[in-house]
C-alpha cells in the first residue's frame, strides 16, 4: 500500500506481524482479516497476481473494514520505521544528540534569513 522500492521487505513484514498480533488479540479483527484475505484470493491467489492486478484487487476493497484496518496499520508502521525515516531524509530523535543548534537547524543556504533580508 505504501510501496518504497528502496525499503527492505522486512519493513512490510513488520506490518504483517502487527496485523497478526492484532488478530490474536481480538477475534473480531481476526474475522475481518480472514474475510478480507479470502476476498483478495477470490480469483487467482493474490500472491500470484502481477503488480497491476494486485493494485486492482486492492482498489476493489477500498473503503471496507478490512482495507481500512490494514491501511491504518500500515501507514503507522511503515512511516514510524527508522529505515523509512532514513530513506525520506528524517533524522528521528534529536534531544539525545544535542538538538540541532549545532547540527544545522538553520543550514538552508538557498534562501537568506527573511528578517535580515531587505
Amino acid at each position, binding site marked *: 500500500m505504501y510501496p518504497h522500492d528502496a525499503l527492505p521487505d522486512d519493513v512490510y513484514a513488520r506490518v504483517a506481524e502487527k496485523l497478526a498480533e492484532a488478530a490474536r488479540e481480538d477475534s473480531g479483527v481476526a474475522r475481518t482479516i480472514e474475510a478480507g484475505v479470502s476476498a483478495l484470493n477470490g480469483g487467482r491467489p493474490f500472491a500470484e497476481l502481477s503488480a497491476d492486478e494486485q493494485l486492482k484487487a486492492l482498489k476493489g476493497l477500498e473503503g471496507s473494514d478490512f482495507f*481500512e484496518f490494514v491501511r491504518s496499520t500500515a*501507514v*503507522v508502521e511503515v512511516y514510524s520505521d527508522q529505515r523509512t525515516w532514513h*530513506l525520506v531524509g*528524517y533524522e528521528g530523535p534529536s534531544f539525545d544528540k544535542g538538538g540541532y543548534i549545532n547540527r544545522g537547524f538553520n543550514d538552508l543556504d538557498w534562501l537568506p534569513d527573511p528578517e535580515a533580508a531587505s
Partner: protein
Amino acid sequence: MSAQPDGHRPVNRFAADDSDVIVVIGSGAGGGTLANELCQRGAKVVLIEAGRHHQPEDFINDEWASLNQLAWLDARTTSGSWRIAREFPNLPAWTCKTVGGTTVHWAGCCPRFKEWEFRIRSEHGCIDGVSLLDWPIGLSDLEPYYDKAEDRLGVTRTNGIPAPPANNNFKVMGNGAKRVGYTGVSTGRMAFNTVPRDGRPATIQDGFNYQGDKQRAHWSTLTSEIPKAERTGRLDLRPESMAIRIDHDDFGKVTGVVYVDAEGNLRRQEARVVCVACNAIETARLLLNSASSLFPDGLANSSGQVGRNYMRHVTGAVFATFDKPVRMYRGETMAGIVTDESRNDPGRGFVGGYYMQLHSLGPSFLATFLRPSAWGRDFAQIMERYGYMAGMWLVGEDMPQENNRVTLNRDVLDQFGQPVPNVHVDDHPNDTAMREHAYAAGESVYAAVGALRTFRVSPYPTSHNLGTARMSARPEDGVVNEFGRAHDVPNLFVSDGSVMTTGAAANPTLTIVALALRQAEYIEQQLKAGAL
C-alpha cells in the same frame, strides 16, 4: 503532592474534609497557572489532574509513542459535517492528559487578541446561523495581565527577550511571504527560552514541540507554574485523579469535588471554591455530568449555554515540496508567523482574521494527516520528498454556533461509568470561506519561492478548544461573568479556554494565562471581602 521517585505516593497535604481549600480541576494553562497564582497569594489549593505526573526526561522523541504517552485518548464521539467526524471520529481534539495539561505539547505561539476581536458582534452585527456575542471585557481590561503573562511565560520579543533565530522552515515561509508582499513576517513571539531564563535553559533547537520539551526551554505549567506552587507549601497536587462530579448544597453553592483516584477509589474533596479548567470539552462534560435536582440541565447551566458555542479555530495546513533540501523538522517547530491576514477586512469574503504559522510534522504524523486515507505509489513518492518539504499551519477565528456543542453521549460510558462527551461541529460558510482564502494565500507564499507542489491539508484534531462556558455580561447569554465566575453559582469558576466568548485568531494559551491571572486576583479580593 507528586509521586516520589521511590514510587510511594505521599499522603495528601490537605484533609478531604478541609473545606477551606480551593479545588482547581485540571493543571494546564488555566488551572496550573491559577493554582500557582492562588498559592502565591496565600491560598491552599488542591489541584486535581486526570493524567500522570510525567517529567520532561520521560518525554519521547517519537510521534506515535508520544501521543500514546501524553494525549487525552479516553473515549469521545463526534457528529456533524466536519471532516473530523469521518476521518478521526474518536479523536475530535488533540489535548493532553498529563500534569501540565496541553501546555506540555504547546509550541508556544503567543499573539495577543486585538482590540476588535473582543467585539466581533458589534463590528459586524448578526451573521446567519452564528451565536456571536461581544466579550464583557475589552483589550484594555486584559492588557495589564497580558504584560504579566508575557513576563511569566518568557515570551520572545517582550521584556527584552531575544527573538528566535530563523530556522530552515522559516527561511522558506518567511521569504515566500515577503515576496508576495506580506510585511508582518517574523520568527514570532514564542514562549520558549532563546536565552536561559527563570531557571530554565535556552532551546537547543531540538524540534518535537508537540511531544513535550525534554530540554525544559519551553514554558509549561509542568516545568514552571506547578514547581513554583509546590515551593509555597500550599499546593496539594493529585495526579491520576479523574473528577467526575461537582457537589453543591441546598443553597446552590458548590461544596466539593468527587473524583476517582489512581487506585480506582472514589474520593471526595471538600472545597470553599471550585475552579474548573479541564479544557473546553471536559469542562462542559463535567458541568453537564454534575446535573442535580437543583440544576437539572447541568451545573451553572440555567442559560442552556454550557457546551454550546464550541469553537476550535478555522485550521488547516499547507505543505510544499522544493527541489532543494529544507529539513523542516530541525529547530523550533512553530517559530515563524505571518500576521498580515489577521485583520478585520470583510472584503475578503469573511469576518475575522487568520495567521500563518510555521509548522512541521515528522514522517509518522505527516503520512497520517497529509491526505487522510491516501495510499499507493503516488503517495509514497510524495513521502519520499519529505526532506524537501516545508510546512505552515493556518489558524483563524471560527464562528460560534449554538449547535456546535459538547453534549453527553449516554450510549457510551467511559472507564469510570460516566457518559462520554460527544462533539458536534458543522462548518459555517464563514469558516469555509476563510479556510479557502488561507489555503490560497499559503500556496502563493510557497509558489513565490519555487514550490514544485503544494498540498492543502484538511483540519486535523487540534488543541484549541474554546467557548463551551462562555463569558457574558448578561446571565441569560452565557455561563460565566467577566472574571470566569459562574452566573448561577457564586463559588464556582471556569478557568480555561471554555470562557472565551469568541475565539479571535490568536493561539489561545497566552489569553488563557492572562485570564487566569486576572481571575486569581479577583478570587483573592472576593475571599478578603468575605464574598466566597
